[in-house]
């Protein structure tokens, strides 16, 4: 039973499985000195999505500081963070939280961690797929690919149809002429 429980910030810290290099790794990847965080929790109070995430922003920082690699990389917070910068603006230590979340997402993907929100990763891939094809995002194509993969063709059918009828979703993508220039920026 207890093994399924999420690590809480109030739990005693067990040092056995901690990755003590994790904080240095995320510092390097994000360019942010995470050790500056003094856990005032301003970010936690400001986060607009705290009700949906498993950890508030400063808990993520704490997990990284202490080396809870698995907990941080498998958290839903790193995917639900949209980078609105509300927390960074409130942070008295000027920690770039959005950059930390980016670094954690990239690390989670790189090492194949069990992702809490695989749909969000798929969405990002769908967006990048249309940028690679056309040089610009093509929202209809993004939505179709995303929904088809989830086998969820009906949840937004009504609003999608309305947007299509109002020509807010375009059938044809807007295209960049020098598309090779855009494509060369993508890794093969």
């Amino acid at each position, binding site marked *: 039973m207890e093994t399924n429980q999420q690590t809480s910030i109030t739990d005693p810290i067990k040092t056995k499985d901690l990755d003590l290099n994790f904080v240095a790794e995320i510092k390097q990847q994000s360019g942010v000195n995470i050790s500056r965080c003094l856990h005032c929790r301003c970010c936690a109070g400001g986060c607009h999505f705290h009700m949906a995430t498993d950890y508030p922003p400063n808990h993520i920082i704490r997990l990284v500081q202490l080396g809870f690699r698995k907990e941080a990389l498998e958290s839903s917070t790193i995917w639900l963070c*949209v980078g609105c910068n509300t927390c960074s603006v409130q942070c008295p230590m000027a920690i770039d939280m959005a950059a930390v979340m980016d670094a954690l997402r990239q690390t989670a993907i790189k090492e194949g961690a069990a992702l809490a929100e695989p749909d969000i990763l798929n969405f990002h891939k769908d967006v990048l797929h249309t940028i690679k094809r056309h040089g610009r995002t093509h929202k209809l194509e993004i939505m179709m690919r995303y929904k088809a993969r989830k086998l969820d063709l009906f949840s937004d059918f009504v609003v999608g149809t309305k947007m299509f009828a109002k020509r807010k979703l375009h059938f044809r993508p807007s295209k960049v002429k020098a598309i090779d220039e855009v494509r060369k920026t993508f890794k093969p």
Partner: protein
Amino acid sequence: MNMKPTIEVSYFPGCSLDSTATENNLSLINLLNRLGINLVELDDWSCCGSSSAHSLDPELAFDLANRNLSLAPAGRPLIVACPNCLLRLREAQYHLENDEKARIRYEETWGRPVDPKLQIQHYFELLDRKDLLSFTKDLVEKLNGLKCVIYYGCMLWRPPSLRHDKNYYGLMEKILASLGATVLPWTFATQCCGTFLSVTRPDVITPIANKIIRGAKDAGADFIITACAMCHMNLEIRPTVKPMVPTLHFTEIFSLALGTDDYQEWFSKHLVDPSPVLRSKGLIQ
């Protein structure tokens, strides 16, 4: 009222204004033309990378944003309307200015010079610099009786590296109030709309959008006014509360107040129709 455009600036519309928010694009071009500014679209611009590139691959995000900087002609500002595009382009520029390795990567990838003094600005900067009183002095009662709340979403917030950039909190309030509108105080002016979570986690976004709409209604607003195309879409598609409060792009209402009659293609694009209220206020036919 109409002035011949006297100033030319470069313009990066971005994917949203090019597709889901064409009414924002049209009304922005209309508004700035009225204020004597001509927007010259960046030739063959590409996506800034949006939220997805920086989430998955920082180098891709840097390269995608830079392609647009490499296309910007020197000597005139690059104007951006989408707050997210603005951040992406400004962040890339910040790295170019402060990181030697980033500069080398830019040169190797693009081989085109970038204007080191390129000013990447939100269109608010143009409004803030203009002597708006000369445009609005004959129109001080134009928006009389219009009650609105101003919704910034997260557009005022920036990462620490860009925190010394100018902030425009109050600009929309000041302009609309000077045209006679009643700008109401409310709680949700800077509540983030959730951007792409609207697609991936509508269960999270619907309660937030409902809260915003209810907040506007409780404040007594006829309209929510926003300057972000993404916020506009989320406030139209995700709330489930009835009746809805329509959301207008700031460029639409400002242009209407300045007397445009070229709005047919704007309001037909809205999913929550603002026309009945605009008509009752005499702002459209």
